[in-house]
């Protein structure tokens, strides 16, 4: 029988498998949960009974031939891709796989500097050389925008030997580049187009969203199904266009991916794909409706600026994802991270992230209207109770880096630890970033400047959660000798 989007082959196989009551003399050792009752009581018997190992009736993610292969075929069809892989190491592993597919040691890759750390980590692994395209910056909001076509053109002209171009689409804040034109340009110069589409799963299923990587003709895309797609944390899709050799890609993925893929993650991807294929349109219509409502209510509070399509400028903001609720907070005299903390500490509301000037509240189909009302009211109360004048706040979120060494050389090079204040002028050998959003302030190989030190201190003082460095308090930085 031909499979269609109403099927979920992995899920169906797990249900069949459960009915077979197979006696387990294989891993995992908890044996359907019986060997670890405390965990079973916490997660539920149903859940533990499908935490099983790869076996003939359930296929194997490292080399799929049956139900996983079928599920991947259905996923490819749903996303309009030539091939799709189930990923269990997060979108991080998808991003790394697509870079390691496109580049080997010494190859150049053109990318915006505001990439996720996973992209630069991939460069450390495969020793590709980044050619950074400075993203356009919105100086009012202090955020990096998309890649402008002319900047990409310039990078291609200066680096005709580059193997690939990577695009963040959309950014965490919801901003999209002109993916179609960048793809055309790249293909004209025989470069692959890799898209970090972590925040764009819904583009494939909703209506009136910005163009998807696959529809724009891009070659590979990494999609966080667990973000707007509703699957379990850590599960993602890697999508491939016609030109990509999926068998070689499987080998690249298997370099770093686990050989014991979790069936909880795999079935969650399978079921979520089915759900979006069948009812994604209504799901995202509701999501957008809630986001648009919240945006207009937050803007009517005054001070806050919940931005949307008015940012579109035909180039570095080619399109905007209206399901995102990004809010600029500086006009009420509070840093985004301060509003983020107040929402949690004072109002029991956890949002996605706060940076220096902005917050992002993640809206999804799981939200209820009454919770949206709470968020809006809490923001109104924060302004009334804690709002002050705007003076004295740092605005810029993005500092153009000076790349002095490749990420791999810097990461593995001889280094020493210096107090933050004495590190200016040295080349950093590690990451410094606020997480979320996980976009590096400093990446391995970049020059440390006074401006960057000032920024790190400011972000720390405002309470940003900083990660990446060996010194967890970020009082010292590792630098190249």
């Amino acid at each position, binding site marked *: 029988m031909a499979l269609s989007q109403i099927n979920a082959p992995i899920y169906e196989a797990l249900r069949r498998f459960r009915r077979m009551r197979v006696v387990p003399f294989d891993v995992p050792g908890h044996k359907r949960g019986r060997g670890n009752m405390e965990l079973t009581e916490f997660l539920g018997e149903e859940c533990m009974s499908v935490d099983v190992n790869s076996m003939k009736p359930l296929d194997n993610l490292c080399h799929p031939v049956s139900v996983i292969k079928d599920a991947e075929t259905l996923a490819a069809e749903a996303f309009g891709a030539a091939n799709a892989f189930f990923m269990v190491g997060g979108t991080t592993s998808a991003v790394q796989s697509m870079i390691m597919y496109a580049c080997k040691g010494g190859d150049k890759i053109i990318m915006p500097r505001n990439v996720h750390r996973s992209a630069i980590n991939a460069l450390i692994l495969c020793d590709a050389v980044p050619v950074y395209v400075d993203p356009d910056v919105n100086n009012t909001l202090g955020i990096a925008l998309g890649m402008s076509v002319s900047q990409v053109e310039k990078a291609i002209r200066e680096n005709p030997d580059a193997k690939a171009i990577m695009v963040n689409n959309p950014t965490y804040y919801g901003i999209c580049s002109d993916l179609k034109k960048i793809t055309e340009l790249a293909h004209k110069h025989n470069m692959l187009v890799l898209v970090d589409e972590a925040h764009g799963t819904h583009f494939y299923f909703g209506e009136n969203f910005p163009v998807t990587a696959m529809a724009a003709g891009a070659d590979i895309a990494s999609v966080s199904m667990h973000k707007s797609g509703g699957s379990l944390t850590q599960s993602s899709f890697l999508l491939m266009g016609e030109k990509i050799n999926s068998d070689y890609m499987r080998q690249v993925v298997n370099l770093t991916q686990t050989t014991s893929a979790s069936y909880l993650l795999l079935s969650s991807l399978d079921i979520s794909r089915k759900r979006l294929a069948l009812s994604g349109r209504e799901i995202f219509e509701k999501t957008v409706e809630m986001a648009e409502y919240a945006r207009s209510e937050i803007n009517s509070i005054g001070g806050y600026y919940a931005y949307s399509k008015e940012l579109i400028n035909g180039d570095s903001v080619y399109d905007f994802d209206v399901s995102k609720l990004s809010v600029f907070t500086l006009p009420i005299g509070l840093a985004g991270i301060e509003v983020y903390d107040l929402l949690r500490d004072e*109002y029991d509301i956890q949002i996605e992230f706060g940076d220096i000037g902005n917050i992002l509240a993640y809206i999804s189909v799981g939200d209820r209207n009454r919770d949206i009302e*709470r968020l809006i009211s809490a923001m*109104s109360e924060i302004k009334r109770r804690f709002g002050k004048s705007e003076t004295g706040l740092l605005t810029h979120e993005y500092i153009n880096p000076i790349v002095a060494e490749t990420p791999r050389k810097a990461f593995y090079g001889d280094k020493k630890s210096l107090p933050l204040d004495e590190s200016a002028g040295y080349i950093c050998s590690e990451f410094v970033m606020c997480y979320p959003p996980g976009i590096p302030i400093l990446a391995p190989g970049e020059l440390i400047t006074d401006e960057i030190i000032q920024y790190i201190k400011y972000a720390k003082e405002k309470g940003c959660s900083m990660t990446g460095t060996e010194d967890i308090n970020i009082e010292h930085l590792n630098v190249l000798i």
Partner: protein
Amino acid sequence: MELWFTERHTPNVKFSIKVDRQLYSGNSEFQRIDIFDSKEFGRFLTLDGYMMLTEKDEFIYHEMITHVPMAVHLNPKNILVIGAGDGGVVRELTRYSSVENIDLVEIDELVVEVSKKYLTTTACRFDDPRVHIFYEDGVKFIRRCEDKYDVIIVDSTDPFGPGEGLFTKEFYGSCFKALHEDGIMVNQHESPFYDEDAAAMQRSHKRIVESFPISKVYQAHIPTYPSGHWLFGFASKKYHPVNDFNGVKWSMQEIRTRYYNPRLHAGAFALPNYVEELLKDVE
């Protein structure tokens, strides 16, 4: 044949009333609504299976949530009621000739319609020209109000379900903003008795204490609510509920009540030690 309505007051305690017949059952966008007749308690209303009011004991709840703030405020004219689709609070408020305007914000229009049809003892004053009904989320309505009301009465259901927003700090803060500088907010404050109710009670008390300069709690005995021991919150910008209370002045208005009276007003603020301790823990 025996037909019983049963509500779980805790996972281990049940409360049952023998039902004579069921008069209505329906689902709104927000909740399931049921009306029953019983021999012991008369007609009663439940939402999602939780007891809201019975004809026999509703007067206790409605008198205590209404007359306490109305007797403390020197000149209450503009009143906001949130929840209260059964009409009981409005019935009590319309007895004050000094009141000029009553805004009622109820999220569920069906509750008002069903009450008008089946609960004529409470839903009897909706046609008073001073009453204006808004079918809206209370959290949203109050957000837009500033320096507008003398008294706000929060007649909420429980801190889960459609009424949960009415137990949040953002809501209490919005109420503070919506009141005049001598305004009073009174709210349904849950029970101190069973553990889970007591925890909810402490949580809302903490949030009110953080939102208002004066925050006191008073009690009443309501037989059909879990444990029967029920609390109300009195939050105020200026007036102390006992020290600033003039019982003689209230009595002169000649409002006939069955539960509330000026001596009971002062006494209701005297709480058992264990309740005082629960409150102090979060103050």
